[in-house]
């Protein structure tokens, strides 16, 4: 099992790996999910306020946004659990409102909170879903065995799911979503609440599913997760899409990495920012000042840019107390894209900000 190094921040290799699924067959790569002007209101609250989205067949679309951005509402509408207030959405060509039954035959859904029956053993969960999908008994049995094997749950097959660990439960949930061999899979924050090791396991499974040609729409709060799994990204905030495109394009916008520079003298912060902006390093995105932490955030796209920035700091004779590169956190992505922070405070930013020491 090849574990992709999570710490190799900023690398584009992962994005390239995810794209493999696109070339799975000779079929014209059409739209697996198509969303136009989708609106969902709860009274005064606008959970979705005119969302457009397009997921091509065989690709992974990451929907990135903070809590309350409308991600779950979107997934619930696309999986027919919720009726939209206005707008139009199709999944695998089926309209979510007019053809819910046909649509349900071709999708898989793994919710934020594992929705397996905890009182039933793992095998019984899968067998039941097989029967609910009209598989003949024999086939439902075989499919349950096969998926338990595939998700490394064979040994726990006869134990109630309530005794499973968080990661096992999430894997069982994924297996349950795969019984009907869906062509479109919705993953609503598949790794929220999991420890890093378990998170890697789930990522590994998702990659394998994508390798099989399944189209995935994944919601997440973590830039890192989106980068690991998705080839395209839609950033949502307060029910609206604020940016979308191929992950490389967005990274070019927000900067692949962020160089965090803290001058020893906080008063030098602004002059340093101005100096860097005035310097005109080719293609360098605009710097931002994080006065709370007394540091400067410089989005850098290449090693050359990074070196140039460090060189400029030295040339100005500014003493630094700290320097590091970070993968942009959700907050920073938002800051770069919209100029304001994500609307809901993030309680777990640490997961996105694995600092990487840089030799100066």
């Amino acid at each position, binding site marked *: 099992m090849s574990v992709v190094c999570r710490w190799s921040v900023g690398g584009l290799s992962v994005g390239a790996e995810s794209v493999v699924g696109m070339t799975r067959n000779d079929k014209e790569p059409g739209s697996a999910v198509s969303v136009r002007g989708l609106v969902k209101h709860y009274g005064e609250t606008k959970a979705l306020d005119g969302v457009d989205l397009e997921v091509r067949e065989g690709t992974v679309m990451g929907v990135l946004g903070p809590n309350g951005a409308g991600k779950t509402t979107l997934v619930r509408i696309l999986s*027919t659990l919720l009726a939209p207030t206005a707008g139009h959405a199709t999944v695998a060509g089926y309209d979510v409102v007019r053809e819910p039954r046909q649509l*349900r035959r071709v999708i898989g859904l793994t*919710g934020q909170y594992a*929705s397996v029956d905890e009182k039933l053993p793992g095998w019984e969960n899968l067998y039941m879903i097989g029967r609910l999908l009209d598989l003949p008994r024999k086939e439902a049995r075989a499919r349950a065995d096969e998926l338990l094997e595939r998700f490394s749950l064979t040994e726990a097959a006869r134990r109630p799911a309530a005794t499973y660990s968080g990661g096992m439960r999430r894997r069982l949930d994924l297996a349950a979503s795969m019984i*009907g*061999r869906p062509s479109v899979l919705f993953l609503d924050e598949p790794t929220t609440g999991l420890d890093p090791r378990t998170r890697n396991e789930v990522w590994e499974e998702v990659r*394998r599913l994508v*390798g099989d040609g399944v189209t995935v729409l994944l919601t997440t709060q973590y830039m890192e997760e989106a980068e690991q799994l998705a080839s395209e990204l839609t950033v949502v905030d307060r029910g609206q899409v604020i940016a979308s495109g191929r992950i490389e394009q967005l990274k070019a916008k927000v900067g692949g990495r962020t160089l965090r520079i803290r001058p020893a003298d906080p008063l030098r912060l602004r002059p340093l920012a101005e100096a860097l902006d005035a310097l005109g390093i080719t293609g360098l995105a605009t710097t931002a000042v994080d006065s709370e932490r007394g540091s400067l955030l410089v989005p850098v796209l290449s090693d050359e840019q990074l070196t140039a920035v460090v060189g400029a700091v030295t040339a100005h004779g500014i003493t630094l107390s700290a320097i590091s590169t970070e993968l942009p956190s959700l907050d920073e992505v938002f800051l770069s894209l919209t100029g304001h922070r994500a609307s809901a405070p993030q309680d777990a930013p640490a997961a996105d900000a694995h600092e990487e020491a840089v030799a100066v």
Partner: protein
Amino acid sequence: MSAATTATTTTAAVTAVTDVRADGHIPLRSHLRHTGALIRRNLLWIRQDPESMFDAVLFPVVFTLLFVYVFGGSIGQSLGGGQEAYVQYIVPGLMAMMGMNMAQGVGTGFNQDFNTGVMDRFRSLPIGRGSVLFAKISVEMMRMLIATAILMIVGVLVGFDITDWPGLLAAVGLSAVFGSALMWVFLTLGVVMKNAQSVQAMGFLVLMPLQFGSSIFAPPQSMPGWLRTFTEYNPLSALADAARGLMVGGPVAHDLWMTLAWSVGITAVMAPVAIHKFRTKT
């Protein structure tokens, strides 16, 4: 390994789901299959957690013994006999209560499904939502029949005379019919309430006064006027009296019709409410 799974996935993707119809219609055979799979699920719950059968087993034992031996003597006198007379009175009354327990079980079970996210899974599958309901009803019905059998055994042990077998079956059926009507009330509670405990507590609050303010446990003749009026209009009185008439003889027609009328009335009002709540639950 991954190569093998890839191959099977792509070829089987089209044929995996058999009974697909272009218009999304679910054939009867599929409905039955789904209901069967869900019944199996509910039965597995019992196997996993046998204690959940305790209420079905213990309720008839405890209630029969309690009422017959604690109140039997004194209430029996007002019936013009003694404890033996009360046995003939209380057993059909308890019989009438079985359907209500069933209704409560359906409501609580639904509530659990909603709270654990299992219902989301079901709703995202191409199955009729009725299957989930029918499966739950079937299992609760089965629980009710077990409880009824135990009640009859305990009843006979404490001296109940089964004189009229067809009448007994009719009384079981009537209790089930009334229970099915009440079920809509509990389904609504199950969908609306936050957790299973609240559903049970609420059910208890509603049913307790109705049960004791009826002719189930004691003849209303000795009750104060206002309460007697209440018991007269209480559907549970009609149900208990109908069960009594069917099981031990006596006038049946009026109470039978009253019970059926109440069942139809409750269903007519509550079924649309429950279905609406169920549909719009997010």
